[in-house]
Structures are given as C-alpha cells and as structure tokens.
C-alpha cells in the first residue's frame, strides 16, 4: 500500500535540547496512524514539522511522494493540542475566516459550515461569541474548522483531551467516518484506550527517539508470548495445577466468569501450539474458558518505555 506521508530521518534541536533524533514514519493511505509517547517525547514537534510550522534541522517530509510544499497546507487539517479561538469574535464569523485561510471560497465555506453545524447539532451557536461557550463547545467548533476543507491528511494532537465521554465518542465516530470517506488520519495521544479502538498503525516515540512502529496487528503478534488464559473445572484442582506446573509455565489469571473455576495463564514453549495444550487439558478437566493473551497497546507501550528507560 502506498504511503500518503513519509517523514525521513527527522532531526530537530532547540539549543542543546534534541527534540527529535532521527525519527522516520510512514503513514499508509486511508489509515489511522497513532503517534504514541509519554509527555515531552517530541510528538508535538513532529506534528508541527509535518504542518510546516517549524522546520526540521535535518530530514525530509514527503506528501503524496513529493517533498512537502507550503501550498500543501490546503491538503492538511491540523487540530493542535493547545487550541483556542478568538474570544470576542462570533463563532460563525471566525469559522468562516479560518476556513477561508485554508483556501475555501466564502460561499463554499458557509455551505459546509452549515452542514457540519447541523450534523454536530450546534446550529444555534453561529452568532454567539466564543466567550459565551463552554470549553467542550469550543472544541466542537475547532474540530469542524479542522475538517472543513476536506484535507487528505488530518492531524489531531491529543484530540480527546478535554472532551467529556459523550463528546469524545462523537468525535471518535466522526474520525472513523472521515476515514471511511478516504481521509488519512494521524493523531498523537498518550491515552491508550483510544489507540486500541482506532489505530491501524502506530509509532512509539520516547525521549526524542522512535522506539517502535508498524501495523498494530503485527506489533501485537510480535509482542505476544504464546500465553493462554484458561478457566478449568477439574475434580482435583491441586493435582491438576501440579501437573500443569511440571509441564508449562503457569501463573494466576483474573477474568470474569460465572463459574467458580480454576483460572490460570499458561505460557507455552516457543514451538508448542495451542492444540497441544488443549489436548493435554481435555482429558483432565472441562474447559470453560480458553483465550490467547494478546498484549494491549498499553502493555507494549509500558514494556518498551521501561525497557529503554
């Protein structure tokens, strides 16, 4: 699959501080790409470089295979982490202004704004000033402004921070729909639940370095440890446990079930398959629960970051 955006060997220093150290990312077309990392890792700096707000010291960025050009801002929609609007300007007026700065004509901008305002049920705000709105309301307006010019690439810096759960869900749905419609989405976050739900690809940045990137499913495959979670109904639990212990690596497991089972995690050897485990268990107990343990992005995140600490 062709990449929409490629950033190659990006370096950025501020005085003595290195914000990005040889970071490269590839964002496939029509995917959702999550940029993960603890606070201060360099995510925002990378997003600003892609938006041409700051220039990299070294390295290049390609959009659609061509080096990034100032005119490309028309193809990018950016929702910064630190977002705000003019306090004393009316909502409609400033949405119109910002949309026109992105290259839309006045009539077109107005039409699309009307559509989005209807969609997010904020039609009544057109003539209100931002200072009359709550923070969550203002964020909705900002979201609309970001997506209004239908850019190929949408960049959200911490899109869910500050939203209440209802609005966060609303925005999540909109992001998924934008992807359906053909947009490519890059977002940064340090909240892993949203990554799990949304991202096809991720890159992990820690202390200015990229530690990990790739397709989420592949990364998970790489990080899984051939471990299974089982719930067993056995006559003699102690003997079974003993038997399992001698053959596999076992540990306690915690999951919800209605049975009062023996709950275990069982780690198999590198070349053993789940079938062997099932065969082993079949003769000794009734299997109520059998699931492969797949590491969550959160686990991978913590594991990688602590390894490199």
């Amino acid at each position, binding site marked *: 699959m062709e990449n929409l955006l490629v950033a190659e060997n990006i370096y950025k220093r*501020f*005085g003595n501080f290195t914000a990005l150290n040889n970071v490269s990312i590839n964002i496939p077309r029509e995917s959702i790409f999550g940029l993960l990392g603890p606070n201060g890792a360099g995510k925002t700096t990378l997003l*600003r470089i892609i*938006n*041409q*707000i*700051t220039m990299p010291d070294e390295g290049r960025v390609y959009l659609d295979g061509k080096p990034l050009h*100032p005119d490309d*801002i028309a193809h*990018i929609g*950016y*929702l*910064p982490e*630190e*977002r*705000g*609007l*003019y*306090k*004393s*300007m009316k909502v409609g007026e400033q949405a119109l*202004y*910002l949309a*026109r*700065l*992105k*290259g839309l004509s006045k009539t077109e901008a107005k039409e699309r704004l009307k559509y989005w305002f209807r969609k997010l049920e904020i039609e009544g705000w057109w003539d209100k000033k931002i200072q009359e709105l709550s923070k969550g309301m203002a964020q909705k307006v*900002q979201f609309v*402004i970001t997506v209004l010019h239908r850019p190929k690439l949408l960049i959200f810096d911490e899109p869910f921070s500050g939203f209440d759960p209802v609005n966060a869900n609303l925005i999540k749905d909109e992001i998924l729909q934008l992807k359906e419609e053909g947009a490519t989405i890059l977002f940064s976050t340090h909240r892993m639940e949203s990554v799990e739900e949304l991202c096809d690809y991720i890159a992990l940045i820690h202390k200015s370095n990229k530690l990990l990137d790739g397709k989420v499913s592949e990364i998970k495959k790489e990080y899984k440890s051939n471990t299974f979670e089982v719930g067993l109904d056995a006559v003699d639990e102690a003997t079974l446990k003993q038997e399992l212990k001698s053959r596999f690596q076992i540990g306690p497991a915690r999951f919800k079930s209605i049975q009062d089972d023996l709950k275990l995690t069982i780690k198999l050897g590198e070349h053993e398959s789940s079938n062997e485990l099932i065969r082993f268990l079949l003769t000794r107990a009734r299997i109520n629960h059998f699931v492969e343990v797949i590491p969550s992005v959160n686990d991978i995140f913590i594991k990688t970051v602590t390894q490199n600490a």
Partner: protein
Amino acid sequence: MRNLRLIINREYLARIRNKTFIIMTFMSPLIFVGMILLIAYLSMLNSTEQKIIGIHDESGMFASEFKDGEQVQYLDYSGKSLQEAREEVLDNEYFGLIHIANVAPGENAKIEFFGKDTPGFGTIENIEKTISDKLTREQLIARGIDVSEIDKARADVSVDIQNFAGERSSKMSNYIKMFFGGAAGYLLMMFIIIYGNMVMRSVIEEKTNRIIEIIVSSVKPFQLLLGKVLGTSLAGITQFTIWVILGTVLLFSISSFLGIDPLAAQMPASNVVSEVAKPEINQLVIDILNLPYASLLGFFVIYFIGGYFLYSAIYAAIGAAVDSETDTQQFMFPIILPLILGIYVGFFSVVENPHGTVSTIFSIIPLTSPIVMLMRIPFGVPWWEIATSIIILIATNFGVLWLSAKIYRVGILMYGKKPTYKELYKWLKY
C-alpha cells in the same frame, strides 16, 4: 496575497469593532473640542475682566502717565493720604495700589505695590516701564537734550531674510515651519505608541487564546505579522480621519453656535501677529502658501510608514516573546527611549539649529529619523541627506522585520518561558 488580504480584513474589523476603540474614536474629538472651547472661553473671561489699580503719587509726575487700557483702569488717589488711599482700595476690593514716593531729581524712584494678590509679571513690568520711561525722559530733558529730536531719530529695523535663491521668508515663517514639523513628528510618535501597542496586544491575545497554532498551520507567520501591522494601521488611519473630520466639524459648528472664536484660544500667536507690521503679515501668508505641501506630505507619508512599520515590527516581536502584557515592561524602555529622544532632539536641537550636527545625525539614525527628519524637512534639507536617511530607514525596516519575524515565529509557540534578551538571541538562531 489572498490570505494576507483576509488577515488584514480581520485585523481591521477586530480593531474597529472593539468597544474601547469606538468610544475613543467618538469621544476624543468631543473632549478635544470641549477643551479648546473651555480654554477659549476662559481666556475670553480673562480678557474682559478689568483690573482697577489705585495710584498714590507723591511726586505728581507719574499719575498722568498711567493710561487706562482694556484690562486695567487706574484711579488717582494722590490727593489723599497714603493710609486713606490704602483703606479705600481695600474697601472697594480693587486689585492694588501703587505708591510712588517723592524723589529728588537724579535719584532712583522708590515704588511700592500693595495688593491682595501678587501681581503678574505683565502688570509689574508695565508699571516699571511707565515710570522708567518717564524718568528717563525727565532726566534727558534735565540734561538739555531735545526729546522730540530723539523720537524723530528712532529707527525701526526689521531684518529681511532671503535665501540665496532670492526667496523671501519672514521670521514668522520659522514658527510656521516649526509648527508643521513639530506637529508631524509628534503625531508620528503618538501613532507609533498607540497603534504599536495595539499590534502588541493583538499578538499577545492570539498567543494567550492559543489560536495562534491553528492560524500558523494555515498561513506563514510572516504573513500574519504583516497582516496584523497593516490591518492595525488601517484602523489607525480610519480613527485619525474620523478625528480630524469630526473635530473640525464639531469645533466650527459649536463655536459658531456659542459665538466663541476658537482662534482666540491661540493667544500667544495672535499677540505676536499684532506686533508684526502689515507687510510682514503679507509675507507670512505668502510663506504659508509657499510651503512645499506636496513634498511635505510625500515625505510625511514615507517617514510615517517607515517609522510605524519599524516600531510595529518590534512591538509584535515583543508581543510574541511574552505570555502576558505584564511581562512587556522590561522591553518597553528600549522602544520608548528613541521615540522620546527623537521628540527632544526635535523640539530643542532642530528648533535651535535645524541643520546642526546633532539634528543631522539624529535624522539619519533610523530609530529617530522619522521624527527628527519630519521636523527638519520644512526648513529645507539637502536631497542627498533625505535620500540617505530614507534608504537607511528602509534597509533597517527589512532587517528589523526579518529579525522580528524570527523571534515571532519562535515566540508565538513558546509558553511559560520568561523571556530574557539572551533567550531572544537564542531564538534568532533556531
């Protein structure tokens, strides 16, 4: 270009829709006109008020020399005793009493003034002059000199000033030139301070609102900076135009309605004029008409734009460097200093000697040149000096805009750092 126009448009509307701006725009002419009318009214009151001064002249020589004027009336109390005269003046609440003691010829006169209040300089001077004139005359006569011959021999001298091209000018025209130059320089300084501050506040506003990152993801910071400066200056020009029109209309309609002559407020000027002989006034009118208005206006526009841009760029950079207006104090001094210096050099050095070394140097230095050169131009400045000054100003403008844009683009995304000059210098290198 399209974006620049959009930014200018927004900045302009944001300025002129501001409530403070609207109030300032419409209140200022009212206040200004009100002040002028008040001054005119007060000076009219002052001039209609007549002082009554008693004279107790023991010598009998001087009482007749004091002539009643528009503002003073003299009453002769010489027939009464000094004590009686004093009591009478006090009872009638007259302004005061002059007591002239009897003097032998050749001696200096001994004169006393009794009054409720200390009399003004004008009054005292008038008394001294009257008596000294009379005494001098008497002494001349006593020495056998024919006073009428001296009067005949008195010659009036007035220097006729011409330049080498043969153009005449009057002494008065120097005042006129000073007035034009001074007004232009002062106007420029006010404009820079008021609207430079506006630019700065608007930068800070965008920074604290955190909208700045949304905007710079659509336009280049330099475009935003330029649009802000241009939009704000257009708002300023609008305000000035309204002030001038509204002020003039108000001044003349109200004054004709109330019957107060606003020109009467300019007392010193009209006094001077009355002292000048008729041909001199004609010359003055010619001088005023002969001032090179086209080039004056042209240079005013050039220096106005040059100076305003220079300072606005600095103001914008400061706005970008700080988080709030309270942090701007440490940077204000270097801005205000050259402006004040320019005004001082203008009002002291240029007036004294328009083409002296100090005036010339300060009219070349770009931070003061807009003000000082504007004040010098009415006196006639060699074209090459103007050209040098303008070229340096323009070059500096580009340099400062470039530096400001660098500070600006780093500063607008920098939060929570207390800026120091060292920090700003580092930003230049990012």
